[in-house]
């Protein structure tokens, strides 16, 4: 097969990248919702919001999306979902098998790539390699956006990279940063609220609680996924993802009810 690509200069390629990025970024300087963290719960939340025609932007500090959804426990790339989480697997078209009663197993890479694709197809925009630095606070400490910077800038010593961050505005911000609960922790640093840290008690029902407690934690800030565990001191979970998917979906619904 003979292939001949069209001729373009380096300059054209650079223009395409710069203008393509700028065009999109400009639209998302103010979004309906900014989701901090591109793991399974964050992607589910953003997908839900974008599917209703709202502007949802995901801030992800890594180059890759999906968080721990690529891999299950002990670096083995099978992810497990307990009933009723398999509903989401079906919705996303992810093949899965029932391992034991009400416990489902799927291929991590397949599941994760399907979720990312589904979020993008719903209209979610992604800003990867960008790290959350701070919150934008409005009247009565309502969260009105986030302050971000490029991840490599944050990763280098400050003497080398004295680069100021920028702020993005949103009606609602979602903290989907996992156990770190980075956004909520910023409010805690200011004495606005106090998190409880994730608990040590192991009970069968911890997944239910993650979903149940998903919601607004402070005006303008919704929390989902494992960040919920840190905020409310809920029992930690094993490598099972049903709660992440359902918590993200619930956070999306919560945001939509506020827009």
């Amino acid at each position, binding site marked *: 097969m003979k292939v001949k690509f069209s001729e373009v200069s380096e300059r054209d390629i650079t223009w395409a990248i710069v203008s393509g990025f700028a065009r999109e970024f400009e639209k998302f300087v103010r979004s309906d919702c900014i989701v901090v963290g591109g793991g399974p719960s964050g992607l589910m939340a953003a997908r839900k919001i974008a599917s209703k025609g709202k502007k949802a932007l995901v801030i992800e500090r890594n180059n890759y999306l999906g968080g721990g959804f690529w891999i299950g426990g002990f670096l083995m790339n099978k992810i497990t979902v307990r009933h009723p989480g398999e509903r989401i697997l079906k919705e996303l078209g992810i093949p899965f098998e029932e391992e034991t009663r009400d416990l489902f197993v799927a291929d991590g890479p397949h599941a994760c790539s399907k979720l990312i694709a589904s979020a993008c197809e719903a209209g979610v925009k992604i800003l990867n390699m960008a790290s959350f630095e701070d919150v934008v606070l409005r009247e009565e400490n309502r969260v009105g956006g986030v302050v971000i910077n490029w991840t490599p800038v944050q990763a280098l010593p400050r003497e080398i990279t004295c680069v100021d961050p920028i702020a993005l505005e949103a009606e609602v911000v979602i903290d989907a940063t996992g156990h770190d609960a980075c956004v909520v922790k910023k409010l805690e640093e200011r004495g606005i609220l106090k998190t409880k840290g994730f608990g*040590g008690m192991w009970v069968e029902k911890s997944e239910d*609680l993650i979903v149940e407690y998903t919601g607004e*934690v402070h005006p303008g800030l919704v929390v989902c996924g494992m960040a919920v565990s840190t905020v409310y*001191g809920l*029992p930690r979970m094993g490598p099972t993802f049903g709660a992440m998917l359902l918590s993200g979906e619930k956070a999306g619904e919560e945001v939509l009810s506020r827009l």
Partner: protein
Amino acid sequence: MILFICMREREKIEESLDYLKNWGWENIYLKDCLYKRRGIRGEELARIRVVNPEDPLPNPSILPGEVRFEEKRIEDCACGKGNVYCGYRLTRFLAYSLDPQERRLSSMPVFITPDYVATWDSSDLRWHLRYAIFSIPTLVSLRGIVEAPARPREFYISRRMGVDTRRLEEKMKDDFLTHEDRRLSRVLAGIILQAIFYFRIGNPFCEDRECSLFHAHWQRELLSSQDDNPYTLCPYHRNLWQEFLHKEGGIRYAKNLS
């Protein structure tokens, strides 16, 4: 005896009442969940949720989301989601929701909840799950019956080594209860029996390992004591039981009580 029950668990509870009736105790009134009473506030429940198993203060600073959760679970009848509550403080404020008639010792108020209850143990500085808190009202935790008495050591060792919990539950099903266990109703009946002795003589427990009043700390102990073989109650408590029945409803002898 007044049993305040979770209507979602009604079937399971009624099965255990059949045991009590079979033992001759028929004076039981069922009432709806105590959380449904007016005056029970989400904020109070959020404040007594045990957040850290190593902190004696259950929940020093509450968030609005926690209050919302508690209010919603009362409204939707959605208890038993896995939260743990301070048993003593829960009984204390539930006592205020009882009317004066219900609060009497002779009314024997028992609240059967699907939630976990725990007490702080100052000897090892940790919260411990309990299957019951004997007080007015007495609290019986359905999930606590399954998870408060420890499972056999082999279970925890195997689980730590990565053996699947479900497989272990299947393999060791004779050694401990699970949430959908058919033996649960008989065990619950024995715990209600403990509550009756608490209300009548102030002590719900017996040192005899075969007596249903035995205070079990292990699932194996619980299952062997909550068994009618060799007897339901030890001879001493069986005599007391006959006295209770006599006072309760004239001359009535314990039916089928071994």
